[in-house]
């Protein structure tokens, strides 16, 4: 399941809800990843834009990949502002055995970073500045710059 929230994530509540959703599902492993906004380069926080239609289809493809391995994937992300030491992102995998979940969370989070249609901004001196240098062009980008013959 994919959960989007306005502002910071309530980490204990989300982890508890997910735990309870799968408590009787006979999974041997629950591997969560919690992303926290760190103090760095004088930022006051981060801010996020999300394009939900493509995020949803991207996430559905990962749900299918998880299902094929007998696993379940869940993800929560913030819209808008998230301040220092708050969380903007949680992903978790449930699987019968730990190895599948440990490997799956790694590949999922890496692909999330380079493919999920979410844009990050630094909140600095009251301004919202696009974090271009920390962003990655989605695979296949640049076709509109092609020379037209």
């Amino acid at each position, binding site marked *: 399941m994919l959960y989007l929230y306005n502002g910071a994530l309530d980490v204990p509540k989300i982890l508890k809800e997910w735990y309870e959703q799968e408590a009787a599902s006979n999974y041997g492993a629950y591997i969560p990843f919690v*992303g926290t906004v760190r103090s760095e380069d004088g930022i006051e926080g981060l801010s*996020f*834009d999300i*394009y939900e*239609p*493509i995020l949803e*289809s991207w996430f559905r493809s990962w749900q299918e990949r998880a299902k094929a391995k007998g696993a379940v994937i869940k993800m929560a*992300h913030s819209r808008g502002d998230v301040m220092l030491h708050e969380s*903007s*992102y949680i992903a978790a995998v449930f699987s019968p055995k730990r190895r599948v979940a440990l490997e799956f969370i790694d590949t999922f*989070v890496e692909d*999330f*970073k*380079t*493919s*999920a*249609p*979410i*844009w*990050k*901004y630094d909140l600095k001196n009251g301004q919202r500045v*696009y*974090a*271009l240098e*920390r*962003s*990655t*062009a*989605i*695979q*296949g*980008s*640049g*076709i*509109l*710059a*092609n020379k*037209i013959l």
Partner: protein
Amino acid sequence: MSILIRVEFLGPIQKAPLELEITNLSELATLLQADKELSKWLTNCAVAVNDTLVSSLEVSLKDGDKVSLLPPVCGG
């Protein structure tokens, strides 16, 4: 019959949506390459037609289609 395509600029691209009479992505590329403000984004933007990412300009468009430009991403 005229064909109207809606073009949306997502995330940090500060540009209002356009309604264009075009029939394929190559025509869109030609139009957007002429826009000085936008040309810097074109090299690193992904393109979606009706919310599906495409990897080539060889895509024909029909009336009511939506084209989205997605600049570099950084979730989490």
